[in-house]
């Protein structure tokens, strides 16, 4: 029956507790409206007229709901698209580069490589898109402003964003580059760890010693993934915000320190290194393997401190004004 179909169309997306009540209310209303009509009309004509008068069921439903609901509403949509494009692009380039390297050094067949490449690309893009959508849906749901990072309250002139100093704007290119690098490294460690190593000429051919002990590495995949996610998160926050503020500086510094701590933790696990390469290095070079790890650790610490100081400097300089 058309009337039931109409009522169903109105009520199907309304909250469950309202559904029945609004349904029966509409039923009686339609009945009353038909009773109030000219009796010369046939039953079908009456129904048709009444339903036309009530109008599009979706519009009626949204009037009952009172307020439109969005996963990502008009306030966030432009920013969402921008961030989504950036992230997908970086992941695409990063994975393509990593697998490009992989295909040069791998012994696997090209067809198999391409299959794996597409698989990785799909799952990584999906992963990235999910993160971005999730973050924005959360912002939308809680009505948190991207500008102030706070719940949207009554508007006040003090909320106006500072005119951006050119230097305060976070470069999108830098973030894309950082996400790309992180993606390349993660892809290598996660999917192609067997091709990382030292290649050297021996007679006619190329000889190769893998750098990593695959079984040892497997136990740390979660941590490696965590480091990767943290780094992506840092860049995401930077892109979404778009300019340096004190808050962004503190958050990125914190995440940087976490990421560095985890990384150092992993490289000190002797299990993850191929014991053969450790011996070879100690045999042929004057430096010990331990020394190399120490130098790497120092490099990570110096880079992290450098990045943090630069972030905090920009945060204080451009976002310190309250």
């Amino acid at each position: 029956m058309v009337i039931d179909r109409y009522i169903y169309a109105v009520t199907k997306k309304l909250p469950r507790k309202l559904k029945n009540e609004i349904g029966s209310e509409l039923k009686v209303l339609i009945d009353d409206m038909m009773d109030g009509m000219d009796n010369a009309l046939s039953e079908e004509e009456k129904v048709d007229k009444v339903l036309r008068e009530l109008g599009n069921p979706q519009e009626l439903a949204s009037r009952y709901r009172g307020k439109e609901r969005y996963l990502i509403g008009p306030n966030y949509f432009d920013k969402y698209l921008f961030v989504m494009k950036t992230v997908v692009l970086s992941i695409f380039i990063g994975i393509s580069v990593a697998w490009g390297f992989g295909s040069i050094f791998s012994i696997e067949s090209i067809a198999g490589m391409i299959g794996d490449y597409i698989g990785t690309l799909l799952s990584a893009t999906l992963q990235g898109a999910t993160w971005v959508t999730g973050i924005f849906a959360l912002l939308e749901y809680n009505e948190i402003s991207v500008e102030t990072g706070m719940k949207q309250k009554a508007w006040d002139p003090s909320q106006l964003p500072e005119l951006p100093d050119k230097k305060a704007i976070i470069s999108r290119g830098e973030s894309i580059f950082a996400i790309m690098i992180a993606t390349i490294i993660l892809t290598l460690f996660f999917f192609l760890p067997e091709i990382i190593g030292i290649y050297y000429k021996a007679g006619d051919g190329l000889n190769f010693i893998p750098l990593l002990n695959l079984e040892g590495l497997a136990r740390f995949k979660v941590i490696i993934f965590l480091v990767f996610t943290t780094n992506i998160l840092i860049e995401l926050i930077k892109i979404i915000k778009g300019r340096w503020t004190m808050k962004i500086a503190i958050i990125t510094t914190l995440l940087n320190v976490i990421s560095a701590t985890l990384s150092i933790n992993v490289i000190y696990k002797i299990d993850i290194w191929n014991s053969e390469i450790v011996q070879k290095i100690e045999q042929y070079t004057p430096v010990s393997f331990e020394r190399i790890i120490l130098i790497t650790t120092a490099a990570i610490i110096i880079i992290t401190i450098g990045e943090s100081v630069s972030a905090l400097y920009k945060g204080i300089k451009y976002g310190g004004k309250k």
Partner: protein
Amino acid sequence: MENNIDDLVLNGLIQELRRGTIILAVLSQLKQPQYGYSLIVLMNEKGFDIEANTLYPLLRRLEKQGILESFWDTDGTKPRKYYRLSEYGEGVYLKLCAAWSDINRAVKHLIDEEE
């Protein structure tokens, strides 16, 4: 053709003007309990056109805001939800009436000044 467009614009403006008065008009008729359809008929008879797809959601909203209270009458063949002003609603209605007279007076003053 041009006339048509002018009519369309004018109609839109009139609709907009009416929209603000709907709540006041509805509240004025709810000192006695009414169900949705009886209210539409009553108001149409008195010259204020209101459509069901506007009124029904509005009644619910006003009830949620505590301005109206409701009860179901299931005695007849058709179960009906009756609405009437709550105690709080009566106060709101009086204040709205006062605001309406103020607006009316001020606008009238502005219009008369024009002439």
